[in-house]
């Protein structure tokens, strides 16, 4: 019976200052949406790394990702026990018309690349066309859609690492095996790029950025990696081999600091709204000091008054929180649309929703704490003398 009354009073008290309640609700909702989006950004970034096939190893230069390795390593890696097949790729880094049109371009070994990336699905006829045309390219479905490319189109790229004006003919469009596969890549012939550059800048020729190694037994990944690296020990270019997942996580480590900052901001947003909400509740409680004193005079306990304050605070923060959670989904969808190429997946995870809900509860509890303690401290006679 008393709890019903607490809820009723909480609801009625909330409607007392509609503008103040409305603004507080909006503030909480916005904070919860921001929190959810920021967390989803971090999640999605890491999720991208989880996606790669764990059976694949990546071999790159021990020194740095930006130092290429001799293409001849390919044969030596293939001979390491446990290795099934090897392919390689080079970051091309060309500019399509304008620098803002950024997408990943790799010069790959046309003969073997797609054997190691079964999740890139290409029609056999298109793949055969690509293999035949040294100036051909295969592009991801999303990328083709974005620029309106069709098979047969010419795509000009201005080289940055490999100088000159290049032109590639689209011979095929690949489709991801599932919606987690990146469909935004542009793949051309490494041999074509290599031979063209050999005439211009011999120092850049016969080099590859990474070898992609398919192994027979994923459980042996560590042993095979070590075997590959030891076979290049004390050579001019030592290697570092790791699973694709570890490779991508290592890549992510570079942006870890940024992600940490994002995560911190997510929590700071919650802290800020907590302070704002605490202020709102303190104001409300101060205005109602005489009412609370009256209730206590009538025989209601300190606990009942605290319950009123907590009830109102929680009702407000939960309403704002639920609104925020509901708005997170459309917000995430449009965020994903706006940042198309940045994330492979962008899904609000159930854990995020739980955290949002938890934050809302926490905001409500914390905001009520000070006013509730204060209402206990204030003596009835002083509360009754309070002017409102």
């Amino acid at each position, binding site marked *: *019976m*008393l709890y019903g*009354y607490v809820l009723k*009073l909480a609801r*009625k*008290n909330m409607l*007392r200052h509609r503008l103040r309640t409305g603004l507080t609700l909006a503030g909480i909702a916005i904070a919860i949406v921001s929190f959810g989006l920021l967390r989803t950004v971090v999640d999605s970034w890491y999720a991208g790394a989880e996606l790669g096939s764990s059976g694949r190893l990546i071999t790159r230069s021990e020194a740095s990702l930006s130092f290429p390795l001799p293409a001849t390593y390919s044969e030596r890696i293939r001979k390491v026990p446990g290795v099934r097949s090897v392919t390689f790729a080079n970051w091309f880094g060309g500019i399509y018309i304008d620098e803002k049109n950024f997408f990943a371009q790799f010069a790959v070994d046309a003969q073997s690349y797609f054997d190691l990336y079964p999740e890139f699905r290409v029609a056999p006829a298109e793949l055969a066309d690509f293999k035949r045309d040294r100036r051909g390219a295969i592009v991801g479905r999303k990328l083709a859609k974005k620029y309106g490319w069709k098979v047969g189109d010419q795509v000009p790229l201005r080289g940055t690492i490999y100088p000159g004006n290049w032109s590639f003919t689209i011979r095929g469009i690949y489709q991801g095996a599932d919606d987690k596969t990146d469909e935004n890549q542009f793949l051309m012939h490494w041999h074509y790029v290599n031979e063209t550059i050999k005439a211009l800048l011999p120092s850049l020729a016969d080099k590859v950025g990474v070898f992609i190694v398919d192994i027979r037994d994923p459980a042996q990944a560590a042993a095979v990696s070590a075997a590959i690296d030891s076979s290049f020990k004390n050579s001019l270019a030592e290697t570092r081999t790791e699973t694709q997942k570890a490779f991508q996580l290592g890549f992510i480590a570079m942006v870890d600091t940024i992600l940490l900052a994002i995560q911190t901001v997510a929590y700071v947003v919650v802290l800020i709204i907590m302070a704002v909400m605490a202020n709102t509740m303190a104001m409300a409680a101060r205005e109602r000091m*005489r*009412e609370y004193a*009256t*209730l*206590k*005079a*009538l*025989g*209601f*306990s*300190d606990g009942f008054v605290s319950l009123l304050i907590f009830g109102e605070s929680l009702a407000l923060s939960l309403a704002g929180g639920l609104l925020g959670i509901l708005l997170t989904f459309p917000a995430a969808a449009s965020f994903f649309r706006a940042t198309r190429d940045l994330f492979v997946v962008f899904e609000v995870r159930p854990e995020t929703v739980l955290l949002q809900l938890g934050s809302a509860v926490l905001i409500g509890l914390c905001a009520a704490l000070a006013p509730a303690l204060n209402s206990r401290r204030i*003596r*009835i*006679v002083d509360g*009754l003398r309070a002017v409102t």
Partner: protein
Amino acid sequence: MASSLISIRELSKTYRRGNQPVPVLLGIDLEIAAGDYVSLMGPSGSGKSTLLNLIAGIDKPSSGSLLIDGIDIAALPENDLAAWRAANVGFVFQFYNLMPVLNAFENVELPLLLTGLNRAERREHVETALAMVGLADRMDHYPNELSGGQQQRVAIARALITDPTLIVADEPTGDLDRQSADDVLNLLDRLNGELGKTIVMVTHDPKCANRAKRQVHLEKGVLLSGSGAH
């Protein structure tokens, strides 16, 4: 003296303002019989409200004894004291102190939430009380939809709803016009005369004070001689 409902001996109250002690009541002796109707008069700051608050159990004395119906209320722990107030004291304040978000019915019902009465029983009690103060037709009105006099009558209904033995009223007509004040005083008369409630009322107004059976005068924290006698 055996019939005393309220028995006050050597009662003192000192407030502190910072480090400064502020003596407000100095050795009060007062007996109030069950069924009595006492008005507490005196200049502003003489300690009338302080004395009333002590009697009502919402403040604690600094020294002396205060027995109500034989109970030393100053010695009760906070929760027991709250329960004692809920059962034994009806409050009427100068500014009514109704909950603005509750309508007349709900305001009067409020003290009944602390009893074991069910919804139907509460409704019956509330309707009777509101009828008694002449506001049966205003049950669903909110305080801001009622005049000052009507609000005070709602407050009186709230004060009598749990059928307490004692009603304390701190300047119940202080904020009302003549007509509304008369309505309120007539009601208090009936509570005392018909229902036998013991009433202690603080007032500035001699006309109001005259409606009580007995007047007690406070001056600078001391009862004027003779006025505490029975």
